[in-house]
């Protein structure tokens, strides 16, 4: 078992499972939390995540295939997705590719939202570009089901914030392309409503000049 990523919430191990290269996502107990709270958070997220990964597939968004779920141990075994993290490449591709990639991401987020799935942690490290040009969404640990405007707005607001903090050079153009792709998936009318919501959420933030 090789640890490939130690996240805040779970650790990802690369493993061979029935002759398959798989990812084992383990939600190890956190020493800083009391056991009651720890168990609640870990088991809830372990049940929730594969469920939403499956729903996302139904919505037409590429996600890893789930092979096994162990709630008691808070482990999920899933497909190893070959490709590159969008975080690593977004700043290093041509500006044309950057925009088309951003637009593709927006389209995928649109599909999720259209089917009532809120990702909850839309950062470029949670998106993998495969050699076939697909963007696979991973890490649905913070996802939830909702058809309401508010969580959709928060979801996209998080995406915007992720672009601003990690890809600050291209954040503006990338987010614009994300919204354009999003509009293609959900329709212009709905996209307008969601962007208005994003503005409202931003104004709710602290120390915003236009508030």
């Amino acid at each position, binding site marked *: 078992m090789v640890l490939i*990523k*130690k*996240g*805040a*919430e779970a650790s990802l191990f690369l493993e061979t499972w029935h002759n398959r290269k798989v990812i084992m996502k383990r939600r190890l107990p*956190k*020493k*800083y*939390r*009391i056991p*009651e*709270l720890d168990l*609640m*958070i870990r088991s809830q997220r372990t049940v929730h995540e594969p469920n939403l990964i499956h729903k996302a597939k139904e919505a037409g968004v590429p996600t890893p295939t789930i092979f096994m779920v162990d709630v008691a141990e808070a482990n999920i075994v899933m497909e190893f997705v070959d490709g590159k993290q969008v975080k690593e490449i977004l700043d290093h591709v041509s500006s044309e590719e950057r925009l088309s990639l951003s637009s593709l991401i927006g389209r995928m987020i649109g599909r999720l939202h259209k089917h009532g799935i809120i990702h*909850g*942690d*839309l*950062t470029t*490290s949670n998106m993998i570009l495969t050699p076939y040009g697909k963007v696979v969404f991973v890490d649905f640990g*913070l996802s939830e089901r909702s058809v309401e405007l508010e969580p959709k707005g*928060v979801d996209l607001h*998080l995406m915007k*914030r*992720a672009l*601003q*903090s*990690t890809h*600050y050079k291209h954040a503006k153009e990338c987010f614009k392309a994300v919204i354009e792709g999003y509009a293609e998936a959900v329709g212009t009318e709905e996209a307008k409503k969601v962007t208005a919501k994003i503005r409202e*959420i931003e104004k*709710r*933030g*602290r*120390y*915003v*000049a236009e*508030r």
Partner: protein
Amino acid sequence: MLTELRNVLTPRNRITFLKAKNSVIIHVSNGRGCCEEPKKLSVNNSVRSYCLGIESTADDFGVAIVSFEGKVLSNANDTYMPKEGGIHPREAARHHAEVAEKVLAEAFEKAAIKPRDISLVAFSQGPGLGPCLRTGATAARALASYLDVPLVGVNHCVGHIEIGKLATGATDPVTLYVSGGNTIVSAFEAGRYRIFGETLDIAMGNCLDVFARAVGLKQRSGAPFGAVVEELARKGENFVSLPYTVKGMDLSFSGLLTAAVQAFQSKKGSLEDVCFSLQEVAFSMLTEVTERALAHTEKPEVLLTGGVAANRKLQSMIEVIAEEHDARFCVVPRGLAADNGAMIAWTGILAYKSGISTSIEKSYVNVKWRLEDVYAPWVEE
């Protein structure tokens, strides 16, 4: 003493040549009150230079004197205590104006220097409560022009981070800044302190304050509500389930606050139990987002700063994740955790040394000044 040599007004920029004791500073302001790319010729950096910092963002009025090499000579403070309810901005500002003279005198007395020894005045320019900020800014302007020394407007949030770095020796940390008015996870990236996560509604300290008032706790002098809740939480035994709200790297405390007050009112647990549960849930949320920022940025240090940083429970939780990610755990000392003048003075020194100063006419306060908007050329990448 400082003399203005020449004033050049170009259509977009105002360029001022300033002559200090042993240095010339070219001040380029872009018409928005702060200079974007100041050019520095040489800076007076002698041990005998002192900066006076004034902090008046919210309920604290603080004056400190700090030497240019980073020694805090004095750090005087007077806190406004409302008879009931939260901070009333106008009443707090009135308090500040009343105690300003006394606190200033105390700062000079403790530092054992004369006003004429001061070579720089710094003040917190924002973010914060307008009336309070204006009181501090007025005092700073008056002092700077009376003493004929340069003035520097400091961002309050940057102040908390910089004093934490000075006191702990941290150089490039992920910072969890938690106080009554702010809850921010940030790290330095390309010239600025970037915000990775923050509260979507109320601040952590605000949540504790409002909860404490709602359940009828009383604030004691020298012991803020957070400390009272911490004390009770230590006696709590049973965990009452409360909503845990983390959205990516952002947090929300308002639902948690309502649920905690309701849990107490509907007697789901004793006051001690609810305090214990509130702290466990809220601090677990803070720890999770800090850990996420740490995993994301892979920085070598974690810095805990701001008023709530004085909470031992929170300290112990952040320490655990620092260890897990091989990062050094740094926490601001108790005396510099809450709002204080020293953090303003020190940040003023750092800014001034890299050529930043604020002209009196550009020294208006900015109540919504975001951390990310501050260009920080003094931080080495």
